[in-house]
């Protein structure tokens, strides 16, 4: 577990360095993800330990959003006067984004499902 964590943290660090050096708009951890993908391609796959540690972290990915999520308490007041407009825009645009991305991918990858639908 420790060597897998060491690898994740080192690649995150490398991602931060690349982000700062090249002034990229992408966060360091996302660059670290690309770097790890490159490492896995070169090594043709993760070790059992790497896979286990990754599963352990990703199984509880929801937990990791709780501290930042609780931060909404600081800013709820900002919704203020425009709260209704903001909430309507959020709900409708999220539904549109989900539907457009999901339906397009579904139709383009499984054309037969389209014909089977009632």
């Amino acid at each position, binding site marked *: 577990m420790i060597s897998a964590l060491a690898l994740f943290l080192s690649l995150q660090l490398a991602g931060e360095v690349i982000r700062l050096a090249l002034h990229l708009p992408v966060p360091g951890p996302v660059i670290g993800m690309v770097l790890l993908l490159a490492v896995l391609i070169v090594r043709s796959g993760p070790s059992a330990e790497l896979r286990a540690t990754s599963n352990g972290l990703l199984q509880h990915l929801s*937990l990791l959003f709780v*501290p930042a999520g609780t931060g909404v308490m600081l800013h709820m007041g900002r919704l203020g006067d425009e709260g209704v407009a903001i909430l309507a825009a959020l709900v409708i645009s999220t539904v*549109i*984004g*989900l539907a457009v*991305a999901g339906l397009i991918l579904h139709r383009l*990858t499984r054309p037969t499902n389209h014909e089977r639908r009632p």
Partner: protein
Amino acid sequence: MNTANDIWVYLAASPLIWLALTLVVYRGAQEVQRRGGGHPVLNPVLISVAVLVAILSLTQTPYARYFDGAQFVHFLLGPATVALAVPLHGQLPRLVALWRPLAIALVAGSMAAALSAYLIAGWLGASVATQLSLAPKSVTTPIAMGIAERLGGLPSLTAVLVILTGILGAVAGDGLLKRLGAQDDASIGFALGVASHGIGTARAFQISETAGAFAALAMGLNGLLTAVALPLLLPWIARLLGN
């Protein structure tokens, strides 16, 4: 009574109690979702945030003090994001084979979400700064805040909108897509990643590893696409609408 108060004052100031509480509340939320048959409305992020906000408000604890403890959990988001490469690698042959449909779905879904948010808020009378803060809300927080700043929006408002969008997508996303007929894990996962970034990706991992891998890919690519495209596209659209 006095000693209980002293103990509380001491503990409330230490990170330990807030770290412990974050984990305990999350475990409870997981249990609620499990007993509810895994229903997505019983989303563990939604329940945990609601309970924690209530506790912090009732005890009049400032968020900064809470975060002193919770930051140890928050910190793991970085290595967890890096770890997303492992399921991504597992799906790599499929992702490469599907690159064209994925690219089309990404661009269409990403722009539809960003522009509809911008336009709907405008029609409902929101200020321009609010509209610009809404546009990047489907991408992961650090990217979204950077984009909002560049566009002339309010980054701290964007941070809330990003979280709310993530929770909305995680709660309603897979049910909506199944109803619309997109029932395969790849499409559901990819849509969750495009529309609802990391919180949607966490939901996708609850569905399957395949859904999670497609969500992780969508989240990463959408961050990149939105950061590049929105600052170019929005001023042009604003001019088109005569604002």
